């Protein structure tokens, strides 16, 4: 026990996010790329620097960043969640359905959607704990869960969106405060909470401890099963909020919500320096990653480049970001060896 806990605490960089260094080296890199992109786009195109375009980007960033955080929590745990899109879609559809079909007040409907998201997290977490915690298990269980939930989405909606959503619900996704979309404030609030979780709370540290070294975390007394299930509930909650916010912005609960989230859910945190093997996350990085993704999609439209290229570019960016991280790790190891 003593030896094991020393083993963990002997490598603090492996499992703790230091609250102070919000802007880590990788985040600064992403920030520089974002600034360069903004500079290029504002010089080369006419309407890029307009209030309307800012609003469009901000709205997209808001949901993408929360989706990225939903994935980031599980990546930090050393797993992956392939069902974030299906959870978000189901939560959106349930919320929309409750309002359109049963005329429940929108806060209660939204609470229902969030509860569904948390239930999905319980399902994922329980099966993963039961079948043996590993990357492969979380992959397979959440792949299956994604398919199960997609069936629910189609079965509930019969593939027809819920249109008649009350105005007070659509308000959240379509209001500006001082020219800034309300959604952006909501996302910032969520980001602050998630950052607080990882920087200050025991649960956050335990998630990263499991992701950094499962065996060591177990030996040092981390309640593995409880933390894994809680992390999945949190991931489900975040995915559900993203889905509900998106439905609020779109004004209808479309069964396609969440269908194309998978790539972005990994891209945003990974670009921002979250380590895929687990044990290291960056909330600011995930938000910056979401901004970069939205800027690129937006920039392609302004540069009149076929939007079809967007998917390819997203893939290249993930590879580039992970490749850079890998290079950084190799050179760090190299330096370490020289020092010895």
């Amino acid at each position, binding site marked *: 026990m003593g030896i094991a806990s020393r083993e963990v605490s002997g490598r603090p960089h492996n499992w703790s996010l230091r609250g102070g260094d919000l802007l880590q080296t990788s985040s600064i890199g992403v920030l520089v790329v974002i600034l360069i992109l903004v500079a290029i786009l504002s010089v080369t195109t006419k309407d890029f620097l307009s209030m309307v375009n800012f609003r469009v980007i901000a709205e997209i960033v808001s949901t993408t960043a929360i989706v990225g955080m939903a994935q980031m929590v599980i990546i930090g745990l050393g797993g*992956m969640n392939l069902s974030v899109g299906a959870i978000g879609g189901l939560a959106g559809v349930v919320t929309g359905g409750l309002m359109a079909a049963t005329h429940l007040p929108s806060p209660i409907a939204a609470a229902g959607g969030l509860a569904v998201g948390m239930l999905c997290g319980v399902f994922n977490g329980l*099966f993963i704990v*039961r*079948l*043996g915690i*590993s*990357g*492969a*298990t979380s*992959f*397979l*269980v959440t*792949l*299956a*869960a*994604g*398919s*199960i*939930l*997609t*069936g*629910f989405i*189609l*079965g509930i909606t*019969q*593939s027809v969106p819920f249109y008649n959503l009350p105005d007070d619900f659509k308000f959240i996704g379509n209001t500006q405060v001082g020219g800034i979309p309300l959604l952006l404030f909501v996302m910032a609030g969520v980001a602050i909470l998630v950052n607080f979780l990882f920087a200050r709370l025991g649960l956050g540290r335990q998630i990263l401890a499991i992701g950094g070294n499962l065996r060591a975390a177990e030996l040092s007394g981390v309640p593995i099963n409880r933390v894994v299930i809680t992390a999945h509930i949190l991931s489900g909650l975040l995915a559900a909020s993203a889905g509900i916010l998106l439905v609020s912005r779109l004004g209808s609960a479309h069964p396609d919500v969440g269908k194309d989230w998978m*790539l972005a859910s*990994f891209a945003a945190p*990974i670009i921002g320096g979250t380590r*895929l*093997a687990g044990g290291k996350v960056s909330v600011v990085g995930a938000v910056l990653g979401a901004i970069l993704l939205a800027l690129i999609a937006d920039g392609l439209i302004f540069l009149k480049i*076929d939007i*079809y*290229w*967007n*998917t*390819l*570019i*997203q*893939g*290249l960016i*993930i*590879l580039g970001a*992970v*490749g850079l991280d*890998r290079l950084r790790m190799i050179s760090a190891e190299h330096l370490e060896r020289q020092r010895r």
Partner: protein
Amino acid sequence: MEQKAAIRGVIRSDVVVVIGSVFAISLLLSQISTGFTSAYNLSSLTRTIAVTALVGFSQLFALSIGHFNLALGAMGAIGAVLAAALMMVYNLPIWIAIVAGLLAGALAGAIQGWLIVKTGINPFVITLSLASIYLGGLTALTKAKFFDALPEAFNRIGNTNFLGLPVMLLTTFIIAVALWTLVARTPLGRQLLAVGANPAAATFAGIPTGAIIVFAHTVSGFLAAAAGILLAARLNVAQISIGTDWLLISFAAPVLGGTILSGGKVSVVGTIFGAALMALITNMLVVLGVNFFWFQTFLGFILLGAYALDRARLSYLSQSKA
């Protein structure tokens, strides 16, 4: 010796379970549904099995070395769309177009394996990124066009019988025999499984691990392209979305057939029966009048159940070894 016999017994028994389920469901369906044994239903069923099994084989080769291939749907689309474009737009002979499509799939797989070996980046991220790079590139190059004016001779591959069996199914059988021989009867197959079971140990034993990884992904890409081309021949159209729904079935077929996900044990025969079991269950849902929208839910539960069995089998195997 006794342990070996015990392990062999378990390995044999999981194929027996899946084969048993296939026959049980077939028997049940032939009793409760008059349409099940109709020539139309049987030929449609066997064609679905042919494609599903190939998709399963494609994942099987990634699984054999302990990797996942998330890009197999994109590789299938590359093979199908390239072959279709060559025969439809450039009027090349069908067999040349097919070979080109297969080679393109193999090349896409080879690039994937090469990147994994050379960069040392997590294979999951590589295949996830390549899935969008391949599919995005293909979409941009073809402008998401449908290739639906395919030569009649090509479409015939998808709807002709030979010796009473669909040509598609026979093609899959021939490929299956080749794969089984490769895995079970050649040194290369043993090296694949050795890398899958323990890459570090395989390297120490003098196995060229890097080359084996590239080889496995190349075969995986080739098989995905074969599945895409066969499906295009059946549907008489090739489009970029041809492999969109393959990810789940690609895992379900081998896992149902007794392949262990962590690498080191694969079953070619089991994968065929795993594919058959899934096609039969889908068929059963149709017969029972279940709304099509819920099929995905059933498929998800099948995968979950199969994986739970896989885990149980693994712990049983490790117990019988101890």
